[in-house]
Each structure stands twice: as structure tokens, then as C-alpha cells.
């Protein structure tokens, strides 16, 4: 076969999914399959059973609550792109989702799959880290949650334990003027193969000063990287900050150890971090400024 022969099960509820995951030895979760099937097809990895969660309606809800919106892990990119709740509350999610591959991939690929696969070129891990998202996890007889920052642990690695399922992603609804920006550097033509991305989030407090600044670089190390040095410098600054460059310069890129591959050398990736950071910051500042003036 294209894939090694395996069993396939389709649970009717999250509970059943977890039950199956913990019953079958060597069971894997199948969501949109846009990464997993390729891995199995190339026979880089193998499972003996696939538990297909892609039809679980309870994992496809986009809900709005008091302080946050929540997205079921099996929500497809296409659903994100067409969701009024997202457009009203955090449009950056839709703007980022529409950059992913093509319509076929967006019809099937899910935000949960994107996070759990955690390829360094994946769009959502850095974005969710910058947004301060919370990941809700269900395991056998237990539910837990952790921050996105804690969730993404290394190349293709997450904090999920075997037998656990990512069920929901909770994204704060900022109560203050805010700015979000996602700036990828694509090296494979139009919007594919992001060698490096920088994501910025910032808010303005009542005095018009920057707060909740989160700057995340991806593609430069094993996990989305918070650039706390710059965040600290920016915290409490006025939003019409003119010298973005010197704030960015406080980040020591020489400490980075970015990977080298056929798409980009580590050195190039390193050099691109301040460039993209400045751009992401400028975009986010512009946005927050607009919000403040309104």
C-alpha cells in the first residue's frame, strides 16, 4: 500500500476517541491528514491504528465567551477563514489560515493538527504563542490545560502525553486596543516554506503605553522563541514609538542557533530575525495606534 497496512477507527465522541487511543496499542490520531498521511506514505513513521477525529462535531466549534474565543482542535482552516466570530474578534487567525497552502489543504487541515504536528514551518505554533493561547487537553480520566508556550516543546514535539488529545484552543479577546502581526519569510515562491516567521502581539493600557508585548520568532530553533529582551524594552513605551530598530537591536541574535537546510542557511535565518521583527512590530504598532485613536 501507499501506507503500511493499518486499522482505522472513527469514534463518535471525544470520550470514545480517548478510550480508543488508550485501548489500541500504538494508536495515532488522524485529523485532517494533511501532514500525517504524508509521513505514513513516506514510511518515516507508522501507526497500527488511526483514530479519526475529523468528523467529531464537538471538536469543530468556534465559540465566543467573556474573555476569549475558543476553537475546537478539529476546526479546519477553511472554517476559520469563514468564521464571523473570528473576523470580529481575532482576524489575524483567518489572515494566517488563508496563507496556508491551497484550498484542498485548507478544506481538510485543522488548527489542532497544525499545532500537534509542530513543524518549524507551521503557521499556528508561533501565532498562538504570541497570542497567549491556552491549550486544553483531554486524557484518560483527566483534563488539563497549559499555555501555548509550554505546549510547543521542540521540533515536531509537544507536551502531549501518549493517549492524550488536544481538544480546544482558547484565545484571549483583548479588552484593550491591540495589534497582531504575522510576518513570514517565504523561500519557496509565493507564500510557501516559511524559513523564518516573526509574530508580534501588543496592547495599549489606559495611559497609552504598551503592555502585553509578545514577540515570537519561529524557524530559528526547536520551538517558537519569545524574544523577551525586546518585549521588556517595549513594555511601558508610548505606542507612537519611533525608534523600533534600536528596541529590536537589544535582542542578541548571535545567541541563536538556527538550523541550516536546503532552503536557508542558519546564518541567513539569524540575519532575518531582526528584519522581520521590525516589520512585525511596525505593523502591530500601526494597528494598535489606529485602535487607540478610534
Amino acid at each position, binding site marked *: *500500500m*501507499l501506507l*503500511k*497496512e493499518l486499522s482505522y477507527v472513527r469514534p463518535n465522541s471525544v470520550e470514545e476517541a480517548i478510550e480508543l487511543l488508550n485501548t489500541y496499542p500504538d494508536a495515532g490520531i488522524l485529523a485532517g491528514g494533511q501532514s500525517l498521511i*504524508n509521513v505514513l506514505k*513516506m*514510511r518515516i513513521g507508522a501507526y497500527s491504528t488511526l483514530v479519526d477525529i475529523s468528523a467529531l462535531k464537538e471538536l469543530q466549534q468556534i465559540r465566543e465567551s467573556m474573555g476569549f474565543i475558543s476553537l475546537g482542535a478539529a476546526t479546519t482552516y477553511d472554517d476559520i477563514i469563514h468564521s464571523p466570530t473570528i473576523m470580529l474578534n481575532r482576524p489575524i487567525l483567518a489572515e494566517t489560515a488563508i496563507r496556508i497552502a491551497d484550498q484542498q489543504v485548507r478544506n481538510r487541515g485543522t488548527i489542532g493538527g497544525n499545532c500537534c504536528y509542530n513543524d518549524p514551518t507551521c503557521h499556528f505554533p508561533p501565532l498562538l504563542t504570541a497570542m497567549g493561547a491556552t491549550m486544553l487537553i483531554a486524557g484518560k480520566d483527566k483534563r488539563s490545560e497549559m499555555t501555548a508556550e509550554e505546549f510547543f516543546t521542540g521540533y515536531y514535539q509537544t507536551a502531549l502525553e501518549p493517549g492524550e488529545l488536544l481538544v480546544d484552543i482558547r484565545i484571549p479577546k483583548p479588552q484593550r486596543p491591540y495589534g497582531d502581526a504575522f510576518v513570514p*519569510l*517565504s*523561500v*519557496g*515562491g*509565493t*507564500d*510557501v*516554506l516559511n524559513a523564518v516567521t516573526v509574530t508580534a502581539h501588543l496592547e495599549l493600557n489606559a495611559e497609552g503605553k504598551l503592555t502585553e508585548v509578545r514577540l515570537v520568532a519561529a524557524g530559528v530553533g526547536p520551538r517558537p522563541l519569545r524574544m523577551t529582551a525586546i518585549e521588556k524594552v517595549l513594555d511601558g513605551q508610548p505606542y507612537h514609538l519611533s525608534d523600533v530598530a534600536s528596541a529590536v537591536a537589544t535582542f542578541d541574535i548571535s545567541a541563536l542557533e538556527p538550523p541550516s*537546510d*536546503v*532552503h*536557508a*542557511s542558519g546564518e*541567513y535565518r539569524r*540575519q*532575518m530575525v531582526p*528584519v522581520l521583527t521590525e516589520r512585525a512590530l511596525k505593523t502591530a504598532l500601526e494597528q494598535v495606534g489606529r485602535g487607540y485613536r478610534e
Partner: protein
Amino acid sequence: MSTLVTDQKTEATRWTGKNVPRKEDERLVKGQGRFADDIRRHNEAHVYLLRSPYGHARIRSIDVTAANNSPGVICTLTGEEVAVLQKPFMEIAPPPGGLMEDYCLAVGKVHFMGEPVVAILAETEELARDAADLVDIEYDPLPAVVDGEAALQSDAPLVHEEAGTNVVWHGVYDWGDIQGAVSRADKVVKIDRLHFHRFTSTPIECNAAVVEYYPGSGEYTFWCNNTMPQFAAMFMGPALGIPTDRLHFVTQDIGGSFGNKITTYVYLTICAILAKKSGRPVKWTEYRTDHILGGSHGNERTFRNIVVPVMADGTILGISATAIDDAGAFPRYEPLGSVIWSQVVPNVYRFRDVKIDFTQVVTNKCPVGPNRGYSRLQHMWMVERIVDIVAHELHLDPIEVRKKNYIQPEQMPYETPNGCVYDSGDYPRCLDLALELIDYPKWRERQIMALGSGKIIGIGIGSTLDSGTNNFGQARIINPQLPFSGNGEVSNVKLDLYGEVVVTIGTTPQGQGHETTAAQVVSDILGIDPDHVRVLIGHDNARNVYTGFSGTYASQFAVTGLGAVQGAAEKLRREIVQLAAGVLQADESEIELRDGSAFVRGQEQRTIPFIGLANIVFANNATMPAGLDVSLNCTYTYRPPFSVPDVERKFGNLTLTYATQIHACVLEVDAQTGHTTILDYAAVDDSGRLIHPQIVEGQVHGAAGLGIGGALYEALEYDEEGQLLTSNFYSYKAVTAVDVPMMKTAAIESPSPFSPNGAKGMGEGGGAPLHAICSALQDVMRQTSGAIITDSFNPSERVYWLMQDTTKGREGVSVEERA
């Protein structure tokens, strides 16, 4: 958007020259095409090829026991058996290249990553693949050689020990007097190294075949998508020890080839051996990764020690250089590329003193094949780089330097230093049109306005030729023993039983619209509507006409294919007229053909439809007018006017027609990232007389897209162990529609005085986007670091580093002032 600028009005024709709807489109857009993988045979079995994970390794042992016992497996095949069942494939080269042994499966060692090592035949594709996991192979890895220049080092690992060298072929081409030119020159520009990278065109349809063996006749049938079947037969017959007429090839719709499907005989041989061994029809369809790993790649070429004598005003006197061409692990179609570049020695320029020391080598990489623009684009890229570098170094305008050096229209037909005859063309006019299409003065203004904005605008030109209709006599320059020369195609045009007009040709179209254009030509000659002409496409050497050259490759259909169709249709017309004159009792000169009938001119009632004429010949021949001998079944072989080149001087006319492409590219580079965006793009073509302007424009778009991909996104990169790092569409970033800018196109028509219809071959293009993009990037460097663009592949990162470095980027380029 397309402008057709035609001033030489060709004689009025009803169908030729018009954009009639393409006959093939209806079935293709409805998904009703019939491709090789659509073929099913009763009782067929499926092949999976287990390929080498190493670039270079000795095979210590292969154990297929478990695979043979795996469910559904019919048999396996290994190199050990192949070495008994097959003689090494013929080589085109004389020694040393001629000594290299090439088998359909690896024998003794693997020479490149992706080389087939074991073939498994099973009841299904899936079972064959599952069984492959059970094959146990022990390899002893060997050091690999992955660079053309490195392959020439005395201590380089040998890809083929039996040849004792990695050199396939070496020759010195020396025309005019390069030493004299150097002494005459005001300045000499020296460039240490230029590198044309390895990439490939990626047909949507991978290689595929269904192969059946009939023990009764000893005949093998190949339903396949090979695009030059008689070339394949020439290799396969001797290798399998059978007469080539036992090899029956059938092609139908083909989903792109770009030359890559010419060398599939290696895979067809595996299938043939398996078919005979198993007694079952064998089906093989390649996976994409297999295709990228082991299909065929484009030639990579390094140019060293380039010396360019020039005058102070930018007049180029000549070029001398050393070229090292990397053919990958097996020569196969090579070393023909070692001579084919010489179809366009001076590209579009007037310089006449040229010396090229040309060496082709093998390396531990996938073998190359004649990929679109084959061998000429590498050479013309070097010439275009030289023109830009000369302009850059002498602080001249590269557009003016081009104009100053172009061969002028009044010099046509123009004999090049090596005896090729450029048939017609007007390069300055094409360039002016291209500049007009992009509104050149506007961009020069914007370029200045953009200074300091973080975006740098570059404008570049690529001037190229597409030399079409090969004189195969040029192969003798490589190997004087080869009994080849000239070229040709054959067609049969007939009236069928009920008066239908049916056309067959030996070609293997892959999207070029042969059905449509052949019908247009026949329609004009026979006076019928193209809708009423049936063109049976595809090669079938048991049923159809063909020649040794038959196929679809090397920009020649408009000349050889349509030349044959025209000849056959004219023959048929003569027979129809003879027959009609006899039946209608009129003089032949009074007969005219219109709407599928013959008329006596001016007398509408004296008429007979084609069905009536066909009826006389096929079902009522006792009524045949006395003394007539017509069959209404006419075959014509078109033979271009060529002679055998002078092998000693490496001199002669190597191609019949030379289509022009002048491209202008405006791009913008992000100063901080090196990211390139194309802002405006124009392609101006002169393909002689256009049979179907829209089909020509389609080819222009396709060639431009592939060139843009090659320039910015596509590279087949190997690491030092010979691992291909870009073996699937995730890492090999094949150009897509979103990457290709809106293109402006225009065409002029300078009819070829040599082709039967004034048309020129034009499908390949000369790689103009690679030249134009490098040229525009050079214009960017002029405004930044002054670096020299020395590589044909310029992804963002390379552009970024070139902009950073004001010293290293200029290394290897110097200008010597002469007294």
C-alpha cells in the same frame, strides 16, 4: 495579453494562421484523455522499484527471499539476473564515455541515489511496495563525487571504474581567431567562473507504461508515454538481443514531457524483462518522488576561465571558455549535449572568434535528459551573462550593448562562425517591442524614485534563440562512427471508406496541439473544415507511419511534422483532383475542392463529394476511370535540406530554423531580505509564420513559467554524499501559477525561407527568463554592492548575500586594459 505585429502578410489562407478551437481540448478538459496509466490489460501485474538510498555504494548482497514469499508477489528482479539477461545499453560516445556500462538495474554497485536496485512484481501495486520493505540489501557506501569540476580531479572517486575516468567526452571547439581578437581588443574582460545549476521541468504526468510480451511472435508491446520511441528502440533492441521491430510502441495522450520522457528506455527494459519472466502484462507507474529522484534532470554546467575581448564601446569580439558539463551517473542521451549547444554559438550576436574547451563528466547524481531548452540554454545563459557583465564592468547600458552586438536583420540569412545558418529574424525590433510592452522609460524613472525605499528595482533582458529541426549529423562531431544525419518526419493523409479525411503522424504530442495544427494545414489544402479532419495522434510503429526521428522533441513539429502533413495532403489533393477530373470528365486544372466536394470551376452542378470518390476507390472500383492509379492513401516524408557537417572543423548547419525570444523583466528586490518579486514581464517572439498564434502563445507562457521557476525557486541540490535534498514537491519548489506574473506577449513573423511553410520550431524556448532575471538582478547589484551574478539560480538568500558583500561578490571578475 498578446499583440500580433504582422507586417509581412503571408498569402491568405482560410484556416492556417487562425486560432481555431483546439481539437484536443474537449476531451482533455472533460477528463476523457487516454494516458499511459489509463491503460489496463487483463491479468496485469504491478511493478515496484526499490531504489538506492545511497549516492554511491557497492552492493554487498541482496536477499529477496522474504519478498518473494510475501503475499501476492509474482517475482523479483535484481542486477545479478539483469547482467545475464541484458547486454549493457549502447553508448553514443566513443571511449571513454563509450566504455561506461549501463544496465536497467544496478549491477554490482549503485551510482546515484534513486537508481533502481530491485524490481518487485506483484498482483497489486500495494503488495509490490509492501514486499519491497522485506528486501534485505547490504551496501558498502563509497565516497561520492557530486560536482563536475571535482569529477575531473585525479583523486576523484570513479563513477564507472570500467571507463577509468569520469570524463564522458572532451573536445575543443575553435572557430575564428580568439588570440587575434584578444590582441585587437581595447579591453579583455575575464570571468573566473559561471555556474548553470541543475533543475528540471516537471511534467504533471510521471513516467508510466504497460508492457506485454507475446511469446508467439517474440514481440513486446509498450503502451507508454516515451516521447521518442525509435530512439528507445535503438537502445533496447541490442540490449535485449532482439530485432528492434519486435518492440512495438504505442503512445496516446501524454501529460507533458519537456524532453524528460525520452530516456525512459531504461525503465521500459525493466518492464520488458519482467513481462517475459512472469508471462504477465506488467504495469508500471512512477511516483512523484521516484520521478524527481530517478527520472531525468537538466544539464548542470560550469564555465571556467572566460575571456572576452571587447572594444571600448562594448563591441564584443569573441569568447573563450572552458565548459564542464555534469551529466549525472549515466550518459544515456549524452554526450549529445556536448555538441547541441553549438547550434547557437554566438547566440544573437555578431562576434566571430570563439574557443570552447568542452568536457562532459559523470557524477553520482541522477542522469540528465534533454530537458526543455536542452544544452543551448546553458550556453546562451553564459553568453547573456557575459553581455551583462561586460556592460557592468565597462559602465555601459546593457541594452545598448545588446543592440550594438546584435546580428542585424539585413544580415539574414546569417552564417555563424561554425556554419549554422540563422534563417531570418529581427532582434533589434523584438527588443524594442519588449521594451515598449514594459514601458521601459517609466521603469527607469521608478527605479530612481525607489532609491532608498528599501526596494531596489532591476530591469533585465534575455535575448535567445530556439534552434529547431536538428541536423542529426551533428552527432558525428561527437562520434564520427555514428550513421546519422539529417532529420525528418512522416505523415499519412487519406480518405477513408466514407470520405473521411484521416491524418496520422509519427509524433508524440504532449500538449502542443498537433491535432489542431495538422487539421488546419490539411483543411486549407483539401478545402474542408478542420472539424472534418480526424487526426490520430500518437506513435504506433506497428500500425502507423514513422521514421527513425519520429517523436516530439527539439522544437521541430511545425517544420518536420507539418511539413510531412503538408506533403501528404498535397499528394492526396492531386489524387482527388485526378480522380474527380476523370469522373466529372473535366480537365484537372478545372477542379476545385471546397466543403468536402470536388467541383468543376464555375459549374456547381458538376460535382462529386469525397464520399463518392472514396466509394469508387474502396468499394466500387470497377467504375474507376480508365488508366488512373490512385489509392487516396498518401504518405509523405519531409526531409529538411541538410548536409553532413564537417567533423574535423566541427562546422556545418546544425539546425534548420531559429526562432527568436526576447524577454524583458522588471523585478524588485527587498533590500533587507533579498526576496525577489517580478513587477512586469514581457516576452516577444518571432517564430516565423504562425500556424496557430494561441498555441504558440501557450508555449511561450509555459516556457516562461518554467524559466522563472528555474531562476528563482527550482534546484536539484545534492549533499556531498550524493543525497538529493529536494526529492519531492515539498522541497523541490516547482513553479506554480501563483508564482508566474501576468505576462505581456507580442509576436512578429519573419517567415523562415527554409521551412516548407515559413514556420519555425519554438516549443522549447531558449531559457530567456533565466537570462532576463539574472540580467535584472545584475541591474540591482549595480545599485548596491556591485556584485556579479555568477549563478543561474538566485533564491532570496543568494541575492541577500550578494547585496551584503562589496568585495567577495566581485571576486573572479577583472578587466584588463590593453595598450
